[in-house]
């Protein structure tokens, strides 16, 4: 069993200059309360890893707005003009990764695999400076695993073992990221007693979760 901590206590665990992966697809399934607390504290020089940078004022866009971020690894930044502006001004360094490759690189990082061989990106700018391996006549890129210091997740339900469930399209990158960070912090819509979530319904095993964020109050 673990005790839920306040959102401020959770944000205070994250020092300046660390790497943070976060769930969410255009803000859907993102830990909004954790982002609010991090922006309020004014954390600096974060590397953020996620599908996209949402929009100004939404999801991880709040951290972009507040100047907390110096590096982004994402598949898409087109919906957030602030990210593009800061990229052009050299305030943020952006690495664009194909969405499926991003998912698999994170999966590799969390599951003891030292790389991914994928056909995605062969013959494109994504292949620059990467090893191309020919296997049985087809070319594949060798993509490196991705891990982070912290993973910030958003779940639908959590119990006090840290078991998590997700709703509909709000799962996205959350389940895979739970494996790939040294410290996993989960924010959820509901915290329920242990035993309430049926074992088959648990999508993220609680053993992966280090901290639960308590109910909003």
């Amino acid at each position, binding site marked *: 069993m673990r005790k839920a901590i306040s959102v401020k206590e959770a944000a205070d665990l994250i020092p300046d200059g660390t790497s943070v992966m976060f769930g969410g*697809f255009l803000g859907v399934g993102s830990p909004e309360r954790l982002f609010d607390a991090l922006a309020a504290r004014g954390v600096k020089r974060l590397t953020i890893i996620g599908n996209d940078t949402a929009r100004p004022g939404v999801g991880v866009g709040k951290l972009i707005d507040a100047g907390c971020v110096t590096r982004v690894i994402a*598949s898409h930044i087109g919906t957030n003009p602030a990210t593009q502006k800061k990229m052009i001004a050299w305030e943020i360094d952006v690495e664009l990764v194909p969405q499926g490759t991003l998912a698999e690189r994170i999966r590799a990082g969390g599951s003891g695999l030292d790389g991914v061989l994928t056909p995605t990106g062969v013959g494109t700018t994504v292949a620059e400076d990467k090893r191309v391996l020919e296997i049985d006549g087809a070319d594949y890129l060798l993509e490196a695993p991705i891990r982070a210091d912290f993973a910030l997740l958003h779940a639908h339900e959590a119990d006090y073992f840290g078991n998590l469930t997700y709703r509909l399209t709000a799962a996205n990158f959350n389940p895979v990221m739970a494996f790939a960070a040294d410290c996993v912090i989960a924010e959820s819509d509901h915290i329920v007693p242990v035993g309430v979530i049926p074992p088959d319904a648990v999508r993220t095993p609680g053993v992966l979760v280090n901290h639960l964020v308590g109910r909003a109050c």
Partner: protein
Amino acid sequence: MDAKEVITRRVALELRDGMLVNLGIGLPTLVAAYVPDGMHVAFQSENGIIGFGAPPPQGMEDPNLTDAGGGFISALPGAIAFDSVTSFALIRGGHVDMTVLGGLQVDSKGRLANWMVPGKIVPGMGGAMDLVTGAKRVIVAMQHSAKGAPKIVEELTLPPTAARRVSLIVTELAVIEPAEDGLALRERAPGVEIEEIVANTGAKLSIPAHVPEMALIAD
């Protein structure tokens, strides 16, 4: 009928019963409105759902039920939701029968460019590179030219989305099929002459003796 409607009504004829289809953001999304009666097509959105439908009535949206463009959708009976790893295993693993994507350029090798314009817009590739690499069929649905400049060109001047040759190009003027030896003109839009297609195409087209007028799906 405007250009977009011609394109979407022609692309809809590529749908087959039982297909799993991924529609790109923008023009391709409109194809969903033209699924023929009695045909069952499952639509995937790469943020993690198969079996979504039109946006629900205003006020009945679920914040956790959106498409890859962030728009609210509904879940049809039998819909399933999954995470990004599963979603791209479906895409990269060849389980998606067809994807319909917009295009900035297609060249004589059938290579598609649709994710960035250097020095102008760098939105990121999102799922486009995986879709073009992994879907069984890749249909490019786009206007034939942009501000008078051909989008079908001999050699891409924009960064390619994948090395793979796309399956079919559908524009408001023509249906063009990329093959090993170049681009073949397959169909012309209603009322469009071959000369007009050639004049608006920046790559060599092989033109068979008979180029039928394209059929368009009815309402």
